[in-house]
């Protein structure tokens, strides 16, 4: 709605401290969704090197995996994907009308589960770099 004057921070992201669980779930779901869409393009770009022959493909992948920053990005990607999946399941239940009164708890549960899975994946992703 148009405002006749500037009401300052009344209705912007600056009030993030006052957001509730459902709002955070929505923001994270949007954010992770966009990250996954973005990743899709790099994914296609990397896989496309296979059209240039097996050696080019292997070389590209080995080159990427040698970079520490790529390993960390992979952990980030896993976190994003896992949260998006878990919250997606939560939203499925919301759409079906199950447990709407538990929606905040199921959001926290998907956060905790995401954290646990990400932590458990760290040795695999960083294998050969530090260990």
């Amino acid at each position: 709605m148009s405002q006749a004057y500037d009401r300052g921070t009344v209705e912007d992201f600056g009030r993030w401290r006052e957001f509730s669980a459902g709002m955070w779930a929505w923001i994270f779901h949007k954010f992770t969704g966009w990250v996954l869409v973005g990743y899709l393009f790099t994914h296609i770009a990397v896989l496309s090197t296979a059209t240039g022959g097996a050696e080019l493909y292997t070389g590209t992948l080995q080159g990427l995996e040698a970079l520490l920053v790529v390993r960390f990005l992979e952990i980030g990607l896993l976190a994003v994907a896992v949260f998006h999946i878990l919250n997606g399941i939560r939203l499925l239940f919301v759409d079906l009308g199950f447990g709407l009164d538990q929606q905040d708890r199921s959001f926290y549960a998907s956060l905790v589960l995401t954290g646990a899975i990400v932590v458990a994946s760290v040795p695999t992703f960083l294998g050969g770099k530090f260990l």
Partner: protein
Amino acid sequence: MSTQIETKETEDEEIEEQSPGERRREIKRQRAENRAKRVEAELDEAEQTRRLKVFRYDPEVEGKEEPRFDDFIVPFHKGMTILDALIYARDHYDSSLTFRHSCRQAVCGSDALFINGKQRLGCKTQVGDLEDPIRIEPLPHQDVVKDLVVDMEHFYDQMHAVEPFFDPDETPDGELEEQRQTPENREYVKMATRCIWCGACMSSCNIAAGDNEYLGPAAINKAYRFAMDEREGENRKQERLRIIEQEHGVWRCQTQFSCTEVCPKDIPLTEHIQELKREAVKNNLKFW
């Protein structure tokens, strides 16, 4: 009021020198002084005082066109609501402080305000539950008319858009015969009937803020209340579903649960919107 006779006497004495305007101003000044003294005494007496930070804005008065926050210190007593505190501030400090209120018991829906960052009813919110300073603002996403009063016209338009009245396909034969509802059906729509049109949900909704055409939680809840009423009949239900399944109807809801969180009457708004989404899908599914 015991001072009234006294002031009359002084009036009589000075009647020759003072014009009626001067006399009136003199009485006003005295009254203000008395009030200030009374406030001071009350603040001293009170075990606890609380600080209100109230949004002020008046486009019609020069010098008040710029929004600002005014501080009011009010004596706290157990059971004091935000509305009580605002009334105290208005009656003792600034009579131009403007806000809507009527029943004072969470029935009329007049005093939905943005209190400490959340849409709440002033009359239903305990001062004791909030941290100082208590920040009181008009509802976000609505134009401010003055101070805490917002323009509700758009909200009412959305409410009326869903045709919020009982309208059955068939009425009983007998002229004064009742149209009975089964207890089960009544129970089914019970929560939806509790809406008091305060507008808190609409103001909290992120989608409604960005999409002016979106019906919003309150209107959809109203539609739910009648669409789920078994007495209305199949034709009317189809018409109701046509309204709610438009582009800016139920499908704009993104289940942020903000409306459900702020509803002062605890109506499960998101649940009702989701149920109408399923109703709309079921209604349009064809297996042939």
